[in-house]
């Protein structure tokens, strides 16, 4: 049985279909969840996609955090369920307190829309389990508030507990310690600013994101269809 992923749609989300397509291409099943849903029963994993949830009003993620579905996501995460926040989804996870730190405006005050190189720092997370440490991945970024920051104590904890999962090779936005993605203490909640779902097919310029999402599907504990475990280039 293929992994069944719920992709949450907030008013203003705009990457939910990219996420659904990528999951399908990798052999998983995906359905959209509405932000007003109060239950996420029957899903093996949850993705909070990119976009501008609730218009990014007040702060990115600040209002999305109070959407009814987030209570269910918090419970799902507390029970060990895999949760992935991409871009705006990462911002929502920090606002919801599921991940530490915050995303501030990019150094240089520019919206960044480009492809960057990432380095896998830790494979002990629901996103990076199929990758290898030191592996370089070309993945797009598309954000204005992607400059990760946290206090020194939090940074020391993230480093000490091997919870920095991805770093930028050439830091594009000023993130502390070149951080592109982190995980929670249980390693089942991961947030990252780059968009792996937009790099799952060579036609899109890179399929390096597939190794990440394949790892996420595998981490759901369901058996991912054998066909999808072939190399990303076969997609």
């Amino acid at each position: 049985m293929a992994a069944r992923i719920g992709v949450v749609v907030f008013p203003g989300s705009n990457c939910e279909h990219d996420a659904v397509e990528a999951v399908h291409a990798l052999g998983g099943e995906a359905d959209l969840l509405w932000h007003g849903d109060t239950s996420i029963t029957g899903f093996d994993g949850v993705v909070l996609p990119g976009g501008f949830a609730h218009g990014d009003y007040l702060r990115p993620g600040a209002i999305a955090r109070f959407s009814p579905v987030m209570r269910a996501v918090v419970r799902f995460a507390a029970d060990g369920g895999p949760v992935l926040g991409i871009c705006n989804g990462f911002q929502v996870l920090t606002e919801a307190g599921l991940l530490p730190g915050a995303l501030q405006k990019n150094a240089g005050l520019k919206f960044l829309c480009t492809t960057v190189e990432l380095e896998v720092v830790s494979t002990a997370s629901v996103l990076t389990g199929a990758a290898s440490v030191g592996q370089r991945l070309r993945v797009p970024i598309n954000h204005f508030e992607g400059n990760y920051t946290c206090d020194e104590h939090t940074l020391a904890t993230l480093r000490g507990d091997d919870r920095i999962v991805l770093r930028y090779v050439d830091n594009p936005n000023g993130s502390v310690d070149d951080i592109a993605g982190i995980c929670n203490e249980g390693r089942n909640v991961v947030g990252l600013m780059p968009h792996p779902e937009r790099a799952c097919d060579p036609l899109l310029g890179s399929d390096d994101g597939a190794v990440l999402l394949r790892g996420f599907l595998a981490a759901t504990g369901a058996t991912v269809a054998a066909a999808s475990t072939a190399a990303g280039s076969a997609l």
Partner: protein
Amino acid sequence: MTFDVLVEVRLRPGIADPQGSTIERALPVLGFDGITGVHVGKAIRFCIDATDEASARSEVDDLCARFLTNPVIEDAVVTLFEGDATDDRSPGTIPGTTVGGGATTAAGIGGEA
């Protein structure tokens, strides 16, 4: 009792303020010299009903900590003023604040011109 509330949300020291630094860099070009320390934040205005000022302040502080600011990167400065509960519930002018000429100019540009 009704209180007018002004919450000023500011970036904490050490947090990058690219808007503030960009504005500051532009000032000499426009002929404004000697201006330093430009910071950009947010001003949030509302009315609140409470039994007294202490309970109003307590509720606003809670609101700031849980919603209006992200304590990782932002601080809030709260100004409370006992309002006169105007019919439309819009906050009055908080003493000590003034409406600058810029507001008038902006209204003129955006109006029926």
